[in-house]
């Protein structure tokens, strides 16, 4: 039982990480290698607010807000040229550009605040959950992750914007033909993904702490979770995160801490090789033929932005 609970706490955070990176990839083919760096940057600035005597809620708000602003800022500036390319060229360039962005963020953090760490201590004694004593912070972190995932799913599955997002993820051309503006959808997704990065920062701060050097590991975990879930599949990423969290807890309990990562990574690799379409298989994805119907309902009259027109032109030349 303890294993399940511990695993879930970690797993929910992995799930949020995976969903955050998977959403953007699914939408635009940009695999954001700066994701972990964004989480850390948001956390560190949050810690500065706390260190300056700011109230906890302000710290949390600043953390999430900064993650969103950072996400949107990067998307609008350095990623703009990336979006002008298509197919594999876009994937490769996005890897390189976001890697460089991660260097910049990490570099600034390391040089300015080498020893800063973000942690939200939760007062109070451990709580009994199903007979297991859990730290209050861990429970809060798990709750936060759960709420964030639930909110993401509600957004995707019940709102008009969410449907538009899923349309574009499944079939960008089709969605465009139905009058959805990929550029606007992208803004929503980038904000959402940034907010999830902020949530990860806060949850990590609650469960343990976020240090300056954690960015790279967070990115790798996010990528692994997203790919195990079947890149671009939000539900898959969520499930993959929780499953890998459980594997981690199980491995810690059985083979000991040092071999845990080996077990976790091997589990991930085996899943990817056996089910490249994702842990949920193809069934996790809504059938393509529904796409057109959704998008027509939500999108209204035909419009395309100049951005898209430029994209198309670029495609023709490439």
């Amino acid at each position: 039982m303890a294993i399940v609970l511990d695993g879930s706490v970690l797993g929910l955070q992995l799930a949020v990480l995976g969903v955050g990176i998977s959403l953007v990839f699914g939408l635009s083919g940009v695999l954001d290698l700066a994701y972990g760096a964004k989480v850390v940057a948001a956390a560190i600035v949050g810690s500065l607010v706390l260190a300056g005597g700011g109230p906890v809620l302000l710290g949390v708000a600043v953390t999430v807000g900064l993650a969103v602003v950072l996400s949107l800022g990067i998307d609008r500036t350095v990623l703009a040229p990336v979006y002008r390319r298509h197919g594999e060229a876009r994937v490769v360039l996005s890897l390189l550009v976001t890697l460089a962005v991660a260097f910049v963020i990490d570099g600034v953090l390391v040089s300015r605040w080498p020893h800063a760490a973000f942690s939200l201590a939760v007062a109070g004694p451990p709580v009994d959950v199903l007979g297991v004593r859990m730290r209050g912070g861990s429970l809060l972190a798990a709750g936060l992750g759960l709420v964030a995932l639930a909110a993401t799913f509600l957004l995707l599955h019940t709102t008009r914007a969410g449907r538009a997002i899923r349309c574009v993820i499944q079939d960008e051309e089709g969605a465009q033909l139905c009058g959805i503006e990929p550029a606007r959808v992208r803004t929503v997704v980038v904000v959402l993904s940034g907010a999830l990065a902020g949530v990860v920062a806060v949850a990590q701060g609650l469960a343990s702490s976020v240090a300056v050097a954690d960015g790279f590991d967070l990115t790798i975990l996010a990528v692994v979770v997203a790919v195990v879930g079947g890149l671009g599949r939000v539900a898959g990423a969520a499930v993959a995160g929780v499953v890998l969290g459980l594997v981690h807890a199980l491995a810690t309990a059985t083979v000991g801490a040092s071999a845990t990562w080996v077990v976790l990574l091997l589990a991930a690799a085996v899943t990817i090789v056996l089910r490249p379409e994702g842990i949920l298989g193809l069934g996790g994805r809504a059938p393509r033929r529904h796409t057109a119907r959704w998008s027509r309902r939500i999108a209204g009259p035909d419009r395309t932005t100049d951005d898209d027109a430029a994209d198309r032109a670029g495609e023709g030349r490439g």
Partner: protein
Amino acid sequence: MSLLDSAVTGAPLERREGLLRGYLPVVLAVLVLGLVPPLAGGSRYLVSVATLLVVLVTYGVAFNVVFGGTGQLLLCIGALAAVAAYTSALLSGELGWPLAITLPLGVALATTGGAALSWLAVRRRLDTIFVGVVTLTASLVVHNLLLGRRELTGGETGLVVQAGSGTALRDPVLGYYAVLALLAVGLAGHRAIQRSALGWAFRAIRDDAEAAALAGIDVARTKVLAAAVASALAGAAGSLYAHVEGFVSPTTFAFATVDVRVIVAVAFGGLGTLLGPVVGGVVVTLLDEVLRPLGQLRLAVYGAVLLVLFLAVPRGAVPAVGWSWHRATARWRGRGTSPAGGR
């Protein structure tokens, strides 16, 4: 003057220079790098930086063969190098086996590992990103094993490589020429591939794997072969470096130390081009050294410079230079066409 032209863009398939012209870029690159020790004026530091540079470039050639050649994003160059290096260092150090046996053994192990990963990816028809993540997890597994089995590997403190001490490899300058010789083999090998039927098969597979198969190319075999060649080269470079340095640690071969730098160097130099890894490796190393005085801010500035470079020349410096050169000389040659290949 089409000499430089073909060296930087990779000649179109149908044009194949004679032996002399074909390999001249390799010879020139190796000669220039060979000048480092005499020019370094006995500075041990410079020679050791240059040794690392040459090893990085050799990793880059390996990555270039497998990714630039066949589009397999093999993100475990460092791990393959580590497998070969630790195998040789441990077998020679613990069991006292001679280097002449343990070096090839380590390389063989790395080759098998890389080929097996590629075979798996081919069999399962994994996309670029999926190959990347599977091989990335493989390299993290290797890294964690090196850290975890500390009774064997010394964990993060590393391992002093006993074998090879007292041999010529430990002389900094001779060691430098040893790794340079390996790079020469790697570059010449890449050139030989480009000039052979295998090079044609690479080009066809990169362009369209299904069309390549319909044309009669054994795509699976070609991909696994490319991965094996790359792994062998990476393994050889890793273990040679271990014996030249006399010390290895997980960090020496970590993903962030090797693969990230290799990707940056090859992408900046020009994916798939013969001299791309050389140009990219030199630029990345120079950048590292120039930025060193900045201390902690170095990484940030490094990232910013890379950002500008990637966005300015997304196809890589070598093709960009090749293109400008081609355009400049086209007028002079009276031919206004662009190179059909661009690689």
